[in-house]
């Protein structure tokens, strides 16, 4: 799985930037077209946020090269908002 993610992911900062731009356009398109009718939209937004934050952390902050403690703090921080969104979506779906 890790190898697959690595193979599919961007291999340099330019590709990461292009993917971030694409995800931003996708997010904006969802914001414009979605009007609270899709029950799984919270999950989708959580996934997009997690993906974008992961791209920034890995390709621009280069957390893989950071000290283990700093790496854990950054990865923990970027998990907070997606987790909050998933919990919110789950609570709303009940």
């Amino acid at each position, binding site marked *: 799985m890790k190898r697959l993610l690595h193979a599919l992911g961007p291999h340099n900062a330019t590709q990461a930037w292009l993917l971030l731009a694409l995800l931003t356009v996708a*997010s904006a398109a969802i914001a414009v077209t979605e009007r609270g009718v899709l029950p799984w939209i919270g999950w989708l937004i959580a996934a997009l946020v997690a993906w974008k934050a992961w791209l*920034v952390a890995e390709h*621009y*902050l280069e957390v893989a090269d950071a000290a283990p403690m700093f790496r854990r703090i950054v990865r923990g921080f*970027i998990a907070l908002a997606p987790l909050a969104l998933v919990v919110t979506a789950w609570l709303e779906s009940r």
Partner: protein
Amino acid sequence: MTGAFIVSLGYPLLKWLEIQWNPAHGVIAGNNAFFTVYYYLTINHFMHSAWGILGMAWVLLRVWQGAYRPGNLKGVESMAIYWHATDIVWLMLFSLFYAFV
């Protein structure tokens, strides 16, 4: 670097437009806890971004002066880390205050 600096100026411009738009549409800090936290965190983020833009201007000036050399890029790297850390905070704020409301 010049391009990045010019694009970064779009953020305070958009923020200014947002602040103009908000009261006209009833988005006021005193409305409820959500809007209070929204203003508190987004203004805080704006202040950090403003420092980042000033830092970018400084790095740009130093680039024009030829201050950076291979092996001596700590100023540029520090600026980039600060900017992207602020960017990650924005991703969190955007998803919690804009995308899912």
